[in-house]
């Protein structure tokens, strides 16, 4: 499912115009992005949580050429699936 399919499903589910469902979807996604950009975590019960992990600079290698390179410090978001969702995804298989 992609974003436009989600928007369509949201519009149908709660009976609102497509354009309004799109605006709400964007608000939700933008709010999450802003939160993570400030280094804050997200915790949605039943769905999962996101935390930012900070990596220091390290010496890596270009996997193609084998050449040594310096990897700059970076932050990455990590997702941990919530218990509810983890269990439901697993039983459906």
């Amino acid at each position: 499912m992609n974003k436009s399919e989600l928007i369509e499903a949201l519009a149908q589910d709660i009976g609102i115009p497509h354009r309004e469902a799109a605006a709400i979807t964007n608000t939700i996604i933008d709010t999450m992005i802003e939160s993570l950009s400030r280094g804050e975590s997200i915790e949605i019960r039943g769905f999962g949580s996101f935390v930012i992990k900070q990596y220091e600079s390290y010496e890596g290698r270009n996997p193609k050429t084998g050449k040594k390179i310096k990897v700059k410090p970076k932050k990455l978001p990590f997702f941990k699936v919530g218990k509810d969702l983890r269990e439901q995804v697993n039983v459906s298989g």
Partner: protein
Amino acid sequence: MTLTKADLVQQVYKNHETLTKAQATESVEAFLRISKNSLIDGSDLLLSGFGKFNVKDKNARRGRNPQTGAELTLDARRVVTFKPSGILREKINGA
């Protein structure tokens, strides 16, 4: 500070003047329910600009109880993974 569902509801309510608080709550709940159902049905969820949630099948494997060292078999299972989009990674790193 941690962002929660209540914060999402608050933000939707604030940004969309036509919605009542109850409708804002309903829309966030529906957003999450639809997202979850997509993953439960085994189909990936792609939110452009944010990232992609994948449903992956893991094979059964032999493992050990790290405390006792006893061998055990871990059943095949289905898990959810997340890959952040390039846009999200750039924003998090202040680009």
